[in-house]
């Protein structure tokens, strides 16, 4: 067993354990921290398959930005996550049973006879001197331009959907329209009543 393989198994074990922790820990801040750890381990695995740029962007974007934002949301909103997750422990035996059954079935199929997995070939090693980022940029903006643009459309739809689902045109603030305020006339506000002096 060489070092690369050892590191791979170690990092994968951390990835698996931290991912399980994300859904099982009771404290949602701990869950967010465990998610950060699992992202970080995943980025190490990506570095090992020579996808350095993706690994760095995973750390920068998800660990650096998205998860910090998420932590802010968890801390600022007073959401009782325990109440939301009430059903979790109730249904977990059934879910665990189904999951274990699936693992057993898959391993039974794969181990029962000699599977021809040795036919699988890994990716070709990248030649020295070629830049990962340069290759990625060239591919994404030429051969993969169509999926890239479609991803942009998906994001646009996500924005439209998120706004239409959360925007409620209810007027909550006591706000005065300046245009109406300026256009007001004396007759609208003051009514002169002839008083009778006695």
């Amino acid at each position, binding site marked *: 067993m060489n070092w690369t393989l050892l590191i791979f198994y170690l990092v994968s074990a951390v990835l698996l354990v931290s991912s399980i922790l994300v859904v099982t820990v009771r404290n949602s801040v701990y869950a967010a921290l465990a998610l950060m750890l699992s992202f970080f381990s995943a980025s190490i695995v990506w570095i090992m398959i020579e996808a350095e740029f993706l690994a760095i962007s995973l750390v920068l974007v998800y660990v650096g930005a998205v998860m910090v934002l998420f932590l802010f949301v968890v801390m600022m909103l007073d959401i009782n996550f325990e109440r939301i997750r009430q059903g979790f422990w109730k249904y977990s035996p059934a879910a665990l049973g189904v999951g274990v059954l699936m693992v057993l079935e898959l391993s039974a199929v794969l181990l029962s006879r000699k599977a*021809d*997995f040795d036919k*699988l070939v890994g990716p070709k090693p990248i030649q020295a001197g070629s830049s990962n980022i340069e290759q990625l940029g060239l591919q994404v903006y030429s051969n993969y331009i169509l999926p890239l643009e479609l991803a942009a459309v998906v994001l646009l739809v996500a924005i439209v959907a998120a706004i239409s689902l959360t925007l409620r045109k209810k007027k909550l603030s006591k706000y005065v329209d300046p245009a109406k305020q300026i256009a007001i006339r004396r007759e609208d506000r003051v009514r002169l009543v002839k008083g009778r002096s006695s």
Partner: protein
Amino acid sequence: MISPWNSADLTFLKPELWLLCSACVILLLDLVSKDQRKAVTHWLSLLSLGIAAILVLAGGVKSPQIVFSGMYVVDQLSGLLKFGSACLVGLVLIYGRQYFIDRSMLTGEVYVLSLFGLLGMFVMTSAFSFLTLYMGLELLSLSLYAMVALRKDDSLAIEASMKYFILGALASGMLLYGMSMLYGATGSLHLSEVSARIAQGQTSRDFLVLGLIFIVAGIAFKLGTVPFHMWVPDVYQGAPTPITMLIGSAPKLAAVAFVIRLLVQGLPAAFVDWQSMLIVLSVASIVVGNVAAIAQQNIKRMLAYSTISHMGFMLLGLIAGDAGGVAASIFYALVYSFTTISGFGILLSLTRTGFESDNLANFKGLVKRSPWLALMMLMVMFSMAGIPAFVGFFAKLSVISAIVSHGFVWLAVLAVAFSLIGAFYYLRVVKVMFFDDSDLDVVDSPFSLKCFVSVNALLLLVAGLIPQPFLSICADAVNLSLLG
């Protein structure tokens, strides 16, 4: 070898580009329009749908053109299905307008999300690599999730939307897992290269079949076939009726194209494996769909179970696997979606403000209240049940004869037996309309809605009396696309 991308490929993308641009323009115009009835948005959306349909027809090609470095294919099959889905979305907008106005749900998002959803369907029908297939699917699904939840204060709709979203995300995850395994086994995302490499026999077969299981499970979720059908009745019942109509019609055309691209064109070498999986899905859907529909009193739930059984019938053609079977499947999908949409259109004509009319009892004595609509509903139900002289009969006949020619006689007998059981609940609607008395009011629906619904339903009869041109259009499209 896949040719690299060049800008001439854009000419094959005219309908999609038009749809994208017009959806963005309508999104912006809707922001500044003050009109409560959204007349400008409505007519512009219909206009852009019409132009998109014309562009699809004008861009028809004789032989398949693979463009964007193997990511996208334009052929007769995609042209036919794109034209059909553009028409269906247009009909949804026409039928649904009064419903949305009555319930003050008419927002610009309905139109914009429908157009983006249609763009997703276009991409799904023409995608030729795992990446574009998935992007198209997500574009369609995201638009639909949001539209189900449009009525924000209706807990049933929110529940339906959550179920749809979570199960849809799970299905997408399964699909991606399967696609990643196929990528691992073949080293390519392009369907043409995937099929070529499998044919060369250089890949691990066990790994391939493992990936295939996940892909078929993901597809079954999206199609709503048993045993992955649990979301269908809840979503159909919970969503606003026009949105149910949208979910039940045009996306099914995109889904059949998705299955054809992925399985028939991408994995022909694994035909034996996915054929047996599809047989299980199809038999289970036909049995469960038809039996469970009998117990439903809510007509939207009943139509949901009927959709499940129709999807099972549609898969029968793919089980045959040859060009004739694929053509039969496409014909079935087209007939099913146009029949369903006219059924929902009639359902919509019976609704009023504050009255949903989605119960079977609301159809009581319809013949006295609106004889014309009752006659139209009779034709829709006869067509769905597959009674001769209506086009639904020829759809069922073509898929069943396709599998019989491949020796699946037991499957054909089972399909016929369960479509007889299915005829019970379709005819029950007819019985309720014609022979039960009711004290409900006279139906008063807009004339334009009645016109479109009538033309839609009468087409089912016309296509049933002269089915040959429609059948040959499907057969030609498949022959030119799969063999050419």
